[in-house]
């Protein structure tokens, strides 16, 4: 097969987006079918490519000249797998959105921009140099904006504003980093980056470009302190779009961080520590926000942020562990994979709830899922998966990440890293706690008043779109060695240049112990904190979920917006306003002084006669007396004499 096949998964969705839009203007039904076919086709292409890659084929394609610098693609194990995941998520969400979006307006626009985003995202995953990555990354940022604001409600617009601002600023900071990186290394090609860095030997001057690029990718991934858009944009987008934003688009950010870590800052301790610190904060903050949230999708969004934190911790450990980082490598890759699949299931479940009730507030949707076994099971699979329950996929990846921290503690003797381990377990516990909160609220507790019966709550295709990925979660967890291990083996080449053999006892006692500690913490948090502090009894009735997170405590409204909307514009406007008029003021000042025009004498003056070139300007009597008298002449003569004398004396004295 020719290498040009790599263009298919990227440009098939992008080019057919227009076709879907045009078809949609004629017939909604045809458009839905076409979109489904495209989703399935994209998935089939990616699956086929993965099969080739598994058989040992590596595709790589350079197209010089396009966009001025040429695009460069490559398909290896990691990329093929992630392209497949992206395609899978697109297929499932497209199938699901037919029913979910049935009553939405502007559906053509939605399909247009989802397909564009799909192509761009696959483009990011297949890219083989930072230029190509950046090209598709930016397209993805802008097209996904429309997915966020699909509702056009004020809340969505505001979230979209945050989203696009972070994306634009992140993109430009990243571009600056790329420029610096290119000028210092001479290449942006992933295959040549590592050589260029080893030839350079001095990593110090790469930290600045590295940090700038990390800023851009981290902004998309939802890394602290650039996470602000994530808990806002995910809940307001339509559920299928949230699943994509959370499951795939954040991973596009992680993709860039992986390249930086594996190719530029390979086994670098400072880089590792920095990522670890950011990862721990993101992980913990996301989990805490999720525990406090009383909105189904917001909880899931905060959970995404927290899981990104887990992944970043894994990437940080890759840097720290040096030669022995295989556990961290596997953990990172597998947690990405797990999280994408889990979030697909969970967000689509939330979508089912919203599609029927048009509400997401836990108090309003409480108990809605009680008599819906299918939804119940699917959600439970996702919840158990993400909570890291043994036998589900989340357990596998979290265990690996935990093991890598333990390994590092073993190497260095602990210190601050012991705290990292406990924070890791605590975040895992919080994950279990907030998922229990959601599950209990939606599927266990009784509703305040019975919900009206409305026939079937979801169609067959939606059920398939949720059910199949949900089924995959325990299957992956039950057979970790062949499935998860195989996936990790595919992915490892991308992250480290020289992967070593790993042997992992997935269900060893120590590993189970870590999971048990986490789950115990989770249970404690749930019963001692969520059920007491976060639920209040209201006027003798039952307990209700309350949002006790202080409104003002929000990085965006507290710092970013005041800074960007008030402080900076004020300063800039002040400076600009002054500078803008500088030249005009100079001209005005000249007009008033040197270039002042002589006044034109009034015409009806009486003493103005035709042919008289010097019109008599009336002078005051005093002036006339002075200037006309002989004493005035004598006065002037005297002054002149004095000056002449002074001059003579001056000359004589200086001789």
């Amino acid at each position, binding site marked *: 097969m020719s290498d040009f096949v790599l263009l298919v998964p990227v440009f098939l969705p992008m080019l057919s987006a227009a076709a879907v839009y045009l078809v949609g203007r004629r017939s909604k039904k045809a458009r839905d079918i076409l979109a489904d076919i495209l989703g399935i086709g994209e998935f089939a292409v990616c699956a086929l490519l993965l099969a080739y890659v598994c058989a040992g084929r590596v595709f790589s394609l350079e197209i010089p000249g396009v966009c001025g610098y040429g695009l460069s693609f490559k398909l290896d194990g990691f990329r093929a797998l992630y392209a497949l995941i992206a395609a899978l998520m697109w297929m499932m969400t497209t199938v699901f959105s037919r029913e979910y979006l049935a009553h939405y307006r502007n559906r053509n626009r939605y399909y247009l921009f989802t397909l564009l985003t799909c192509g761009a995202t696959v483009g990011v995953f297949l890219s083989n140099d930072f230029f190509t990555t950046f*090209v598709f990354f930016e397209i993805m940022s802008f097209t996904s904006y429309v997915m966020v604001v699909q509702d056009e409600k004020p809340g969505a617009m505001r979230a979209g504003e945050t989203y696009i601002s972070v994306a634009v600023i992140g993109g430009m900071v990243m571009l600056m980093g790329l420029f610096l990186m290119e000028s210092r290394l001479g290449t942006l090609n992933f295959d040549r980056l590592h050589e260029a860095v080893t030839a350079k030997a001095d990593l110090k001057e790469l930290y600045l470009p590295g940090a700038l690029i990390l800023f851009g990718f981290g902004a998309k991934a939802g890394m602290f302190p650039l996470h602000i858009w994530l808990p806002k944009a995910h809940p307001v987008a339509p559920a299928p779009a949230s699943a994509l934003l959370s499951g795939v688009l954040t991973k596009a950010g992680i993709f860039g961080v992986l390249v930086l870590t594996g190719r530029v800052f390979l086994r670098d301790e400072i880089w590792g520590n920095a990522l670890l610190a950011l990862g721990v904060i993101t992980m913990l903050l996301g989990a805490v926000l999720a525990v406090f949230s009383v909105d189904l999708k917001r909880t899931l969004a905060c959970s995404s942020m927290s899981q990104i934190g887990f992944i970043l911790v894994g990437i940080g450990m890759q840097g720290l562990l040096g030669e022995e980082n295989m556990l961290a490598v596997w953990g990172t890759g597998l947690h990405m994979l797990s999280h994408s699949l889990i979030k697909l299931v969970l967000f689509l479940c939330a979508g089912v709830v919203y599609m029927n009730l048009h509400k997401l507030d836990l108090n309003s949707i409480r108990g809605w899922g009680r008599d819906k076994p299918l939804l119940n099971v699917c959600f439970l699979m996702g919840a158990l998966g993400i909570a890291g329950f043994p036998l589900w996929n989340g357990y596998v990846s979290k265990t690996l990440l935990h093991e890598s921290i333990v390994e590092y503690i073993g190497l260095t003797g602990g210190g601050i890293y012991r705290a990292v381990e406990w924070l890791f377990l605590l975040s895992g516990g919080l994950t279990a706690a907030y998922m229990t909160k959601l599950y209990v609220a939606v599927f266990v507790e009784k509703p305040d008043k019975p919900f009206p019966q409305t026939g079937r709550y979801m169609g067959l295709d939606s059920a398939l779109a949720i059910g199949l990925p949900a089924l995959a979660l325990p299957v992956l967890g039950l057979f970790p060695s062949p499935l998860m291990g195989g996936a990790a083996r595919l992915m490892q080449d991308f992250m480290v240049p020289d992967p070593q053999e790993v042997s992992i006892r997935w269900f060893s006692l120590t590993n189970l112990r870590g999971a048990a500690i986490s789950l115990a913490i989770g249970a404690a948090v749930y019963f001692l904190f969520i059920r007491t502090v976060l639920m209040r009894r209201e006027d003798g009735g039952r307990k209700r979920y309350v949002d006790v997170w202080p409104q003002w405590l929000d990085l965006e409204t507290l710092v970013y917006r005041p800074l960007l909307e008030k402080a900076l514009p004020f300063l800039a406007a002040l400076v600009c306003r002054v500078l*803008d008029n500088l030249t005009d003021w100079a001209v005005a000042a000249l007009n008033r002084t040197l270039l002042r025009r002589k006044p034109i004498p009034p015409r009806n003056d009486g003493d103005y006669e035709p042919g008289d070139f010097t019109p008599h300007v009336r002078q005051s009597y005093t002036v006339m007396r002075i200037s006309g008298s002989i004493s005035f002449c004598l006065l002037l003569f005297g002054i002149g004499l004095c000056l002449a004398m002074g001059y003579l004396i001056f000359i004589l004295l200086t001789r």
Partner: protein
Amino acid sequence: MNRIFMLIAAALPILAGALLPAWRFQKRRSREIYVLSAVCATSLIVLGLLLRRPEGALRLIRLTRTLDISLAIDGLSGVFAGLVAVLWPLASLYAFEYIKHEGGDDRFFAFYTVSYGVTLGIAMSANLITMYLFYELLTLATVPLVAHTGDRRSVRAAKKYLGYSIGGAACAFLGMMILYVYADQSLTFVYGGFVQERTPLILAGYLLTFFGFGVKAAVFPFHGWLPSAGVAPTPVTALLHAVAVVKAGVFAVMRVTFYCFGPEVLRGTWAQEVVMAFAVFTVVFGSAMALREQHLKRRLAYSTVSNLSYILFGVTLMTPAGLAGALSHMVFHGVMKITLFFCAGAVMYKTHREFVPELAGLGRYMPVTFTAFTVASAALVGVPLLPGFLSKWNLATAALAEGGVIPTLGVAALLISAVLTAGYLFTVVVSAFFPVNGEGSHGLELAEDPNLYMKLPFFVLTALMAVLGMGSKGLLTLLSRIAWGEL
């Protein structure tokens, strides 16, 4: 082609414009045909000249023993003349429709067509004195266009424009005299410059010429005329104040820097640092001003101020790579900005709305216009696959290859400015397509896309942007060869 065609290209529009009132056109249609055929014929001649370039210079008038007025074409002229020749017919089409609600057609089209010839004259000048002549003529030919409406605001704007331009030209004249006396008495453009030695006087002369010609390129602090001149009819702002006049300023700076003083003499001097610092500052300054401007056309004008300094920044790097970046931005910015202005004009023409908050919800009623606006905005911000991204990439890599404090700051300035650009353009796009609670939609029911005359430029320009964005390898190589002095 024969050298005489250069004279024809410059003289044809000038004569056609000057004679336009003499025909006393009664019907709008016949005037349109007259103007369009003159403009298209000129454009064809220019394209022919570019494809088969005549060798050597064509001397028109001999001024002194050493100085003469003469025309010649080299690579740099080709870029400017080609850009103008492609955009002028489109802008004329647009103007036919737009001018219907302004009136004064004869005067307008007369000066509009004359400006075309004068601009070509600037592009094809063989020496500094010829360029100076056409440069002054351009000022004079465009003043009536700025003052076209005739109300107080536009007359004031015209006066301001006149004052700034003449003042700038005076500065440039001084610099030119320094060159004449101390360097070379023929002032003929040579790639690499004709100045031999680096003296303080020469450097001061460079500063004078840079800021003198920089007035038309709206470099801070001489940018004030450009936003004020936005009161002119939109075809004028779009073509002259986004492409022809301002690019003439930039072009003149390129000529002076690379073809008179020469980068070897200037590189590493305080003069280079000063001009580059001013360019870098203007980049951020223009964008910041645009962000706080609520009048759409003035906002675009400030955006032009900023973008012109991108080009100047590339020029002041004084490396061939920098000049290549500058040339690419000169071409791309021309295409992008003229589209934005056309859209703003279409909105004003159809709805009489000029301020940004008034545009909320218009996207639904004027889909073609706002799609073009969106594409051009994204291009100007620097979204990949569209041309603006490429030129910024070129400029930034050239700057970083040069190293040093000011170039690095300049790259940061480019990116900050890109963020600000997103701020001042995407807010327009977003409020047009996603009005919050349907605000501002009353009274819009009659708003619609303009007719084909105005829409055709949108289609052509949007397609051009897509082509330039994705398939411009050839063009970039060509520009780079020009910048290296190979063409």
